[in-house]
């Protein structure tokens, strides 16, 4: 089913339209949400909420515009809010444990899927993962939008409801912090 047809069906209350959109965008949405909320189960909740919200508000969607930016704006907003709420309530000890567990998963997955992956590469992935976790949810969301979803700074600003100057500053400080935490491996980033 073409995207415009899926949206037209959804606007008529036909959830087969939603199913088509879910199949198209779910994996990328899950990955973006996971990078922000840093918990797979939470990421699933975020993406489900985002699709439900898109369903509720589809009549406000302008069919002349592409669906993906509108939808990912919803995903990022919910993920950011979820990350804020999560980090308010996670004790530091638990957070460390969770991050170590996540690292173990990453390393194990690496070894299983590609034995040729170098230790340096796994270390780098670990370093990036941990460094991302040290950013604030707003910074992390901005980084994910800019570098994972490959959005322009202007689009990130518009989609996050932030002034462009504020967004640039947020990205700048996030990059600076990543440079410090990632050391030489991040020298030209």
């Amino acid at each position: 089913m073409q995207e415009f047809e899926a949206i037209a069906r959804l606007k008529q209350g036909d959830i087969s339209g939603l199913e088509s959109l879910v199949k198209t965008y779910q994996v990328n949405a899950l990955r973006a949400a996971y990078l922000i909320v840093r918990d797979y189960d939470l990421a699933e909740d975020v993406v489900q909420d985002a699709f439900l919200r898109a369903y509720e508000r589809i009549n406000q969607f302008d069919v002349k515009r592409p669906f993906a930016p509108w939808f990912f704006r919803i995903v990022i907003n919910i993920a950011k809010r979820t990350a804020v709420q999560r980090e308010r309530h996670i004790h530091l000890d638990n957070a460390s444990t969770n991050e170590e567990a996540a690292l173990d998963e990453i390393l194990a997955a690496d070894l299983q899927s590609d034995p040729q992956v170098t230790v340096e590469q796994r270390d780098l992935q670990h370093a990036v993962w941990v460094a991302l976790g040290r950013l604030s949810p707003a910074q992390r969301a901005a980084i994910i939008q800019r570098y994972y979803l490959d959005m322009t700074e202007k689009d990130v600003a518009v989609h996050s409801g932030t002034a462009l100057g504020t967004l640039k500053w947020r990205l700048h400080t996030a990059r600076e912090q990543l440079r410090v935490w990632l050391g030489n491996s991040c020298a030209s980033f």
Partner: protein
Amino acid sequence: MKKQEFRQLLHEVAMQTVPSNRDIWPMLQERLTADLHRRQRVRLLPATRLGWVGFALATVFVFSITAYAGGSWLHRLLERDERLQHIDLSLSQRLALSQTIENVTVAVEWVYADTDRVLVGYTIRAADGKRFDPYGETLRDKADITLPWQSTYGMTGQSDALQVTLPAGEGAYTAIFDNISASPVLDVRFEVRAQELVLPSIHAAPTMETTEETPLVLAPVPAGRIIGPFTFDFNVTVVSSSQPR
């Protein structure tokens, strides 16, 4: 590390936890069905134009135009919504803001904010008695961050049992937003448009003799005109949420 390498690393980390064949549709479908059932229970305004026909024929939930956040009807309403049942509306702040465009007046009467939710209570009234529904509510803070809209409850009509009546052409609404701001005082802009409600007319097919089997034909319903936006700026102090974590 170049930007491209960083991008690649982000993709690798995400791919390792979220496989490409992950399918959330079955779970989402279950939630969608459950949500629809829940909404049917708590929704007081019909979702469709046809629903309004039945709505007009039946006596409905109602409330007084003078009732605002402290009104017992609203307490009962919120108790039915698990997201809202912990809200203490005695902590809401009364406002008296109104704006009239093309003989349609929107009045913001009260606002409540805690660390999880922001509720805005307002009425829409048309001078000519026509019905208007809210359309495209938004709430933005002074940093231009949009607080995500969650849902809107609305009430209209009259109730002998409750001895309260809303005049024709008036509806009262409570818009619910997620509070994603960390600020202790929200400096916000609330915007809403009003869309005219157009009820379908019912005609018998003109060339057919009317019998019990004669089909009733619903005339196409034109889209109601949209008026606004109505814009309101106000501050609200954020109280601690009592919602259990």
